[in-house]
């Protein structure tokens, strides 16, 4: 069996006096789209930020492509090939859309074929190319945040709640964009509250509760098992369609 691209082993994270991650263990296989689900406060965002080095793991191991990155700095982790799209999107609102993309392409000019592919995924960005990103709508900002993450080839995308607060039509666009990214072979770990979006996209699913992974498996199994959905997430897929 091939080694997973990302592997978390008994990861604990403290933020001030709070023990947020309480032994997270999971694998993210290469080329898969893994959904990370769970109620608010379960530790999903903390998991992504800990992988990215933005919050330090108090103990445990994080291995990326066979290399221990637990104590690496955030820039080193990014340089190793992990891109992060935070829940707040964190686009640079005073910079133009173009400048946001330029900045994300660390290694130099954006390859024109890649750019065409990116703008094909998010055509709305073309119209605002030279405008400050602060002028974009919420959905367009989310598109820019994801475009920025894929401005150059990365090994793994960490995306935190990309559909949060978006209109249904925008959620559908976002699902299509992630389908295209998946088809392009990107490895993605995606935090999502919208079970409709999660079920439409995920190959695998991890469910968190109280700072631990309480379920991992194929998304299709969770979609097919309403009792399991009810037990893990307190919902049924029918209610979210």
């Amino acid at each position: 069996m091939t080694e997973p691209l990302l592997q978390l082993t008994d990861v604990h994270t403290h933020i001030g006096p709070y023990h947020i991650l309480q032994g997270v263990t999971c694998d993210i296989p290469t080329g898969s789209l893994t959904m990370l689900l769970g109620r608010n406060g379960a530790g999903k965002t903390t998991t992504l930020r800990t992988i990215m080095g933005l919050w330090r793991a108090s103990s445990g191991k994080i291995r990326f492509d066979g290399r221990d990155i637990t104590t690496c700095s955030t820039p080193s982790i990014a340089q190793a090939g992990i891109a992060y799209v935070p829940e707040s999107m964190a686009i640079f609102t005073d910079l133009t859309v173009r400048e946001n993309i330029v900045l994300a392409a660390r290694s130099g000019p954006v390859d024109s074929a890649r750019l065409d592919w990116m703008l094909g995924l998010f055509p709305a960005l073309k119209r605002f190319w030279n405008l400050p990103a602060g002028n974009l709508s919420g959905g367009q900002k989310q598109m820019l945040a994801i475009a920025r993450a894929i401005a150059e080839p990365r090994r793994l995308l960490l995306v935190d709640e990309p559909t949060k607060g978006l209109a249904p039509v925008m959620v559908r666009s976002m699902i299509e964009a992630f389908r295209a990214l998946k088809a392009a072979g990107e490895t993605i770990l995606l935090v999502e509250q919208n079970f409709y979006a999660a079920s439409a996209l995920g190959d695998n699913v991890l469910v968190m509760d109280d700072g631990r992974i309480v379920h991992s498996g194929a998304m299709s199994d969770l979609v097919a098992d309403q009792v399991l959905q009810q037990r893990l997430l307190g919902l049924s897929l029918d209610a979210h369609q």
Partner: protein
Amino acid sequence: MTDIAVETSAPAELPRTKTDWVPLALVPALALLALPFIGSPSAWVTLTVAGLAMGMMIFLMASGLTLVFGLMDIINFGHGVFISLGAYATLIVLGPLAGWGEADSIGLNLALLGLCIVTAMAVTGVVGAVFERVIVRPVYGSHLKQILVTMGGLIVAEQAIHAIWGASPIPIRLPETLRGAFVIGDIVMERYRVVAVGVGLVVFIGMQLLLNRTRIGLLIRAGVENPEMVEALGYRIRRLFVSVFVAGSALAGLGGVMWAFYRQTLTAGMGMEVMVLVFIVIIVGGLGSVGGCFVGSILVALVANYVGFLAPKLALISNILVMALVLTWRPQGLFPVARR
């Protein structure tokens, strides 16, 4: 910044960026508004040129601090020492090259001024690097400690200046051709003030080009807004912090040189004396905004000059009044950048 293939791929008929013209229009509006109150056009021109020159000198002293403030979230009350140090660094050049200053040659005089500027920027840049490492770095993230520690650093540095150059004020002379004034009809414009306007404009344009046309400028602008995300993109923000702190200190040194020749007297406290004004223009302009700092500096200096001419008793509070009015209108300053 590297030009990218993006530009050729993006559609040509894109909407243009909207510029926030209102704060930019404040300066000419203020100048025009003052004209009928002042009455005499020649007095108005003299006051306006003097105000522009003063504004440029304040901008030179404040521009570095606004970047440090915006990017690093550091409240550096020790910034004034770099102004003083820059001023005293002129002595390193003025000692051996005093003859250049007395020569009736604009070339030699400007070369002397240029050498003073380069020396002051080098000295304050190096001291800035040490100041950041020894004094500022241990207190990142704690504003109260920053105020206390940088004030302490300021006091120590001022005493060091006393120890090296003595506690008495030191007079310096303007280079020969920069003394006196241009007289055109009834209009009197001091030559040195015209030079100060030129230096200020060159620095402002240089900073705008750096910030808007280079990758390092993009990083600084992005870092002012969200340093964590800059790190998540793979850039080492700490190195950028140090570079900006050094550049900010060097700019203060440049401002110190211009301020020193304007006052023609060196004192260790001369930097600290202008810090209130420096903080006012940074707040008026918007934390982290170089453009805001530029407009704010000119605005504050022009108001001080006009009010000083029309109602001298109000001159002392005119700066505070400008700040209060601007903050009432735009609570984050004329061009807010820092979102923290």
